[in-house]
C-alpha cells in the first residue's frame, strides 16, 4: 500500500523522514507530491550541498520503501494546467492535478495524460456523473482525501464528510478508478493503513475499497515507470533482445 505525501520545502518533514515513518507504519511506498523535493524536479539546485536527500533510489534503499516522484499541478485554470501537464509528464511517474473548481475538475478528468484528480471537492468544485464517466474512460483516478476527516473539526469536517459521501456514491456507480490518501504534510499527519481503514469505515466506506485505493498509487507508479523507461515503444510493443541501440 502506498501513501501520497507532501515533503519539505512544501511540508514540514523531508522525504527521508516521511519514508522512515511510512516504513514503520507498514506502507510499501510513498508518492512524493512536492515537485522540488526530489532530484528530477530540480530540488538539487535549490538547497546547496547540505540540502536534504533528494535521490529517490537512495532514500528507498535506506528505508526499505519505494519512493515515487510525483508532481501536483495547482493552476488557476485549464490553460495553465494543460501547459504544466505537458511540461511535467515526461519527468514524473505520477502527475496529479489539484481540482477544486468546476473547470479544473472537468479538464483533469478529460485529459488522459493526468493520473490523479486531487482534492476534487476542496474549493467550491463539484463532481457529477459526466465527470465520473470521463474519469473512467480516461483512467483518471479520483482522489478521496481523508485529511479533513482526520484533522478538521465541527462544520468543516461535516462538510468534508458529506462531500466524500457524495463523491463515493457517484464514483462507485460509474466504477471510475479511485485513490485514497490522508494528504499528510508532515510525518505527524501520516496515519497507518489500518487507522485509515478504521476511520473510513466510520464514514461509511468499505474497508477493502479503501485498501484498493491505497494500492492504486502503486499500480499507477508501476505502469508509468514502465512507460517512461527506454524499452517502452507503445502498449504491447517493447524493445526486444534482438534490437540494438542505434
Amino acid at each position: 500500500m502506498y501513501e501520497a505525501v507532501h515533503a519539505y520545502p512544501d511540508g514540514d518533514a523531508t522525504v527521508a523522514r516521511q519514508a522512515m515513518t511510512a516504513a514503520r507504519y507498514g506502507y510499501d511506498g510513498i508518492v512524493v507530491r512536492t515537485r522540488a523535493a526530489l532530484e528530477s524536479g530540480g530540488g538539487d539546485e535549490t538547497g546547496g550541498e547540505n540540502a536534504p536527500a533528494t535521490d529517490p533510489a537512495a532514500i528507498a534503499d535506506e528505508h526499505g520503501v519505494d519512493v515515487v516522484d510525483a508532481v501536483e499541478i495547482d493552476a488557476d485554470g485549464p490553460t495553465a494546467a494543460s501547459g504544466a501537464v505537458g511540461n511535467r509528464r515526461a519527468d514524473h511517474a505520477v502527475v496529479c492535478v489539484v481540482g477544486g473548481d468546476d473547470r479544473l475538475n472537468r479538464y483533469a478528468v478529460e485529459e488522459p495524460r493526468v493520473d490523479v484528480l486531487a482534492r476534487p471537492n476542496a474549493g467550491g468544485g463539484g463532481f457529477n456523473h459526466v465527470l465520473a464517466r470521463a474519469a473512467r474512460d480516461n483512467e483518471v483516478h479520483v482522489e478521496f482525501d481523508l485529511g479533513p476527516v482526520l484533522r478538521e473539526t465541527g462544520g468543516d469536517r461535516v462538510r468534508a464528510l458529506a462531500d466524500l459521501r457524495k463523491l463515493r456514491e457517484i464514483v462507485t456507480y460509474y466504477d471510475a478508478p479511485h485513490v485514497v490518501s490522508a494528504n499528510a504534510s508532515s510525518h505527524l499527519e501520516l496515519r497507518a493503513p489500518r487507522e485509515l481503514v478504521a476511520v473510513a469505515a466510520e464514514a461509511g466506506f468499505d474497508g477493502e475499497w479503501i485498501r484498493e485505493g491505497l494500492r492504486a498509487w502503486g499500480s499507477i507508479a508501476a505502469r508509468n515507470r514502465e512507460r517512461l523507461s527506454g524499452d517502452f515503444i507503445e502498449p504491447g510493443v517493447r524493445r526486444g533482445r534482438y534490437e540494438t541501440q542505434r
Partner: protein
Amino acid sequence: MKHLPKHLRPRWRYLAVGIETWPDAEVGRRAFQRALWYGAGNLLGDAGSADAGLKLLSFSCSGGSGEAVVRVRRGHVEEARAAVACVSEVGGDPVGIRVRGISGTVRACEERYMRRAAASSTQRDVAFGDAERSAVVCGDAYDVRTESGYVGAAAFDIE
C-alpha cells in the same frame, strides 16, 4: 460494592498507542485524555463514545515521543482505532499517533508493545539547507529548528 460475577464483568481490550510530537511540545496526561474523548465524541457520537470507553490507563510523553495504554470495551476496537487516529493535536500541538498493537491484558500490552526506556534525545548542531542549525536527535530522527518552526528530517538527510 460487591464485585460483579465473572460472566457479568465487562471485557476489555488494551490498545498500545505510540505518540510522536515536535520536541518542544508539552503533552500532558489530562490533555491527551481530553483529546481522546473529544475525538471519540465527535467521530462516534455520544452513544458510540460511551460504548467504546476509551479510558487512558497509563501515559508518558516527553521530548517528542511517548506512549500510552488505552482501555477499550471488547468488540469496539475498530471504532476506538478510528477515534485514536482522529487525534491530530493535543492542546494546540500537532501529534502523530499510531496503534502499535492490541492485547487482552495490561501486562501483555506493556510487555509486548511498550519500550522500557524511550530512546534518549540529544541536542546537536547540524548542517541543514544553507545554514548550521540546532536539532533534537532521537535515534534516526532529527527535528531541525528553522525560522518557521521545526522540520522533521532523518539521519540520511544530514550525512
